[in-house]
């Protein structure tokens, strides 16, 4: 079932590629249908998923290169399930959104998007490190072309920056993957199987380097401040559908990597490195918020808001409590929905005026009332107003972080306030007041297709905002298992040091390490 889910878009891409070039209508529908097929399979997966189990489900294992212990291994747990759902929901919307804006090379565009979907789904579902890396890197190629071919005026620069930045970090991860493979087991028993590598003993001298290589690759993807500089360029230049996918899904590959690999493979190092990542996360939250506020360009504003929001996710993950991690996971989904929605909104405006400058708009609400309602809801979701999805996620993150550190929680809460400021400011400038937009006649109300884009997003905003438990229930067991593993491994490490063997058995890992540092001179 998982293989069908992963490769359904790929099959769609092959079919689309076989269509003749002129058949734009058929290409668009076939592309949409392929992504809807993946959505159908994802929904079936969501329904049949057993929420009580923390282990991987629907596991498929086939030897791929037996000589080196490489497998085709896929499986889903509560963490990947939510991200797979998000991916499956966003792609049809992104494809549908391109119907109005992509007029050239429609076939190539659709093929690239569908290949991208397969690669992303594969990334989230892989249980073998080589397979994971293959999908991880395969994501870059279609995205490079999406930005480079269908992007804005500065697209070449943005596409190159995007691919070089992310490649540089991920090849180091490849080296780390192989080093881990070689170090974790003697020749003959070596494996790239994630679940077995999680239990393997990595030499303590090597683990920090490997952790650093993995985490760097993910941090670039997230992006964690100060590695975010590729993001505004890529977002601004990418076509709307590209921005939506990039923000809603590709960034989550980084945070997913934190959860699955940085914490999963190197829990001891992760505990020690958590304070650093928390600091970077908080800087990202506040920096992203302040910089967003200063943007004259609406798309850049949304792009920088991603830096801020993803800072929250990073904070939630490295707070290392179940609540915060649950919140982080939910916030990954939420950010996908709300920021994906915001990029669609920018796309709707851009399609009309061909400008992203906030000053070119004004009083749009009077001309596009239905659009104003949509914008309001999505904006409030992004600002984490109670009863929207964003609130649940941020609340859980702050709650979990508060238990770990009051200072971080307080600083992060300031970031939350910032997000309200810049979003409301942008909304006010664009939508409210007298009509000051340049050519009001071109600001026509959103049509049925454009409205349809937002219907599922708005539905999800309120559903998760009011009743998040179907999602949280499914992720809880897996998240709890991650946190417990981290705590168990971190304590096992502490126990090796006789001086603190009896100290703080039940305290949280981060404090344990600080205590240890104080005790051992």
């Amino acid at each position: 079932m998982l293989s069908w889910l992963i490769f359904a878009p790929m099959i769609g891409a092959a079919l689309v590629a076989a269509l003749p070039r002129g058949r734009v209508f058929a290409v668009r529908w076939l592309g949409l249908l392929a992504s809807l097929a993946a959505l159908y399979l994802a929904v079936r997966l969501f329904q049949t998923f057993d929420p009580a189990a923390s282990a991987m489900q629907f596991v498929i294992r086939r030897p791929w290169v037996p000589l080196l212990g490489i497998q085709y291994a896929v499986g889903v747990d509560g963490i990947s399930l939510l991200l797979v759902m998000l991916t499956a929901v966003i792609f049809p919307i992104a494809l549908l959104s391109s119907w109005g804006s992509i007029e050239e090379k429609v076939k190539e565009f659709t093929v690239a998007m569908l290949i991208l979907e397969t690669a992303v789904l594969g990334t989230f579902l892989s249980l073998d490190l080589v397979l994971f890396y293959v999908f991880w890197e395969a994501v870059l190629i279609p995205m490079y072309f999406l930005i480079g071919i269908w992007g804005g005026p500065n697209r070449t620069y943005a596409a190159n920056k995007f691919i070089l930045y992310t490649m540089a970090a991920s090849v180091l991860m490849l080296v780390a993957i192989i080093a881990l493979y070689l170090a974790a087991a003697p020749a003959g028993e070596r494996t790239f199987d994630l679940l077995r590598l999680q239990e393997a003993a990595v030499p303590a001298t090597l683990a920090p380097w490997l952790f650093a290589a993995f985490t760097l690759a993910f941090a670039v993807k997230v992006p964690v401040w100060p590695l975010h500089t590729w993001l505004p360029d890529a977002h601004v230049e990418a076509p709307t559908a590209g921005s939506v996918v990039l923000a809603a899904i590709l960034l989550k590959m980084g945070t997913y990597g934190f959860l699955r690999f940085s914490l999963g493979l190197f829990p001891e190092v992760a505990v020690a490195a958590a304070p650093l990542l928390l600091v970077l996360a908080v800087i990202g939250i506040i920096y992203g918020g302040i910089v967003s506020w200063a943007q004259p360009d609406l798309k850049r504003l949304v792009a920088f808001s991603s830096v801020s929001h993803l800072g929250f996710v990073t904070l939630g993950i490295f707070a290392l409590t179940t609540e915060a991690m649950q919140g982080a996971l939910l916030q990954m989904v939420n950010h996908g929905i709300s920021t994906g929605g915001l990029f669609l909104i920018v796309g709707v405006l851009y399609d009309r005026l061909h400008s992203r400058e906030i000053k070119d708009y004004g009083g749009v609400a009077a001309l596009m009332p239905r659009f104003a309602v949509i914008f309001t809801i999505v904006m409030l979701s992004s600002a984490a107003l109670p009863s929207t999805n964003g609130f649940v996620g941020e609340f859980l993150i702050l709650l979990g972080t508060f238990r770990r550190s009051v200072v971080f929680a307080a600083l992060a809460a300031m970031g939350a306030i910032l997000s309200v400021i810049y979003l409301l400011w942008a909304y006010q400038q664009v939508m409210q007041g007298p009509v000051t937009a340049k050519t009001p006649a071109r600001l026509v109300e959103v049509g049925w297709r454009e409205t349809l884009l937002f219907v599922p997003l708005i539905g999800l905003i309120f559903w998760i905002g009011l009743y998040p438990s179907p999602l949280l229930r499914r992720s809880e067991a897996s998240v709890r298992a991650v946190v417990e593993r981290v705590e168990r491994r971190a304590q096992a490490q502490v126990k090796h040091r006789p001086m603190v063997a009896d100290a703080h058995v039940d305290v949280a890992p981060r404090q344990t390490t600080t205590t240890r540092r104080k005790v051992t001179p």
Partner: protein
Amino acid sequence: MTVTVDLRAVLPEIIVASAAMVVLLWDVLVGHRGRRALAPLTILGLVAASVALVRVGVRPPAFGGMYVRDAATQVLQMIALLAAVLATVLSLDYLRRSELERGEYYALMLSACLGAMVMAASADLIVLFLGLETLSIPLYVLAAFRRGNVRSQEAGMKYFLLGSFSTAFFLYGVALLYGASGSTGLAALGRAAAAGLTPLLGIGIALLTIGLAFKAALVPFHAWAPDVYEGAPLPVTAYMAVIAKVGAFAAVLRAFPLGLGALTEQWTVLLAALSIATMVLGNLVALMQRSMKRLLAYSSIAHAGYLLIGMAAGTPDGAWAMTFYLVVYLFMTLGAFAVVLLLERGGEEADQIEDYVGLGARAPWLAAAMAVFMISLAGLPPTAGFIGKFYLFNAALGAGQVAVALVAALTTVVSVYYYLRVPYLMFTGKDQAGVRVLPAPGVRFAIITAAVVVILLGVLPGPLTDAVQPLAALLRGK
């Protein structure tokens, strides 16, 4: 020492040599009208040689132990034959178009292939030298094959002069090694090397390495490559880019483990340094190229560096990883050259990268194929290039050569920039009116084959991985 002459052991070589002669005579005896049969005859000869290769199978060493036909020979010779077949298919249309189709051309191609095959089977420095010359001299002539073209003349001359120098180095190295060990046999050399590193031995190894490094275009012995690649007729460039590498790396695989197994620690450092220099320089200079042929020339230099990683590891894993990558390199490089061969501007080769702008609008499948080759050359999944690099990284790290692996990884990032630029330009910008896509069925066939293989090996690398395992044995015995 009794020399047993078991000609069955060299049956494939005999077939290739006979095919070369038949092709040469055919042109003289049958004349113009028979030219159409030249390429089929060449391919027939090569296929017959491959069949013979399989039928003959692994045999005990022949010619008093100078010639080995072990499993490694089989694999390496098969690669050489494969390269020759593909290059013949690629040449066909070009030769007819530029009225160069002559028996000599095919005879020279076959001879070069024969040279690479001999190098792959040699257990003796003299046989190795014989193979090296049989490989090199036809390539000098082929580079200058467009007699009316000054660039081609220059390329041939340059290649010949520099190549002769390197051959002299090689031969001098052989002489010194003979002085050190008292025999030209690699096994005897191995015994002498086991006794310890003497100055004579050290200088001999260095000179031998220089000779082979020149053939493989390793930095700092690469200077000839860009000019020769640019000047030589396109199909010759394509053939040269692969067959010279096959020969040189086969020789490295033969000479180093068997002759110098005891000194592995010394030569792995030497080769690792060469490999790092080659990867860095090849990739950085490739960034600035405007000519497609020069880009591919620097790309082939860079890839020589990647290939050498396997040997520099000095482990069984390295040997088979290198051979795997050699096959991958063959398909992706010939594929990329095939795309260049399919284009022309005003009757000339469409060599400038600008010529490719916007081609995707007119020839989407061609652009897609080029994208596949470039993605593979850049080492991105899901192509064979990724798997090949993965194996090489694995070998380097397995041998504890973290620096080599890191340099390889980071230069790969650099290479992504210039490789992906090509398909990117093909898919964007305005179509270049002056550039024509030729019908050339042979070239099209080669492109499709190469693209399919590159993807297939990326998705299902298992069979080829198993097939190259015999190479590991070369380094296991030490």
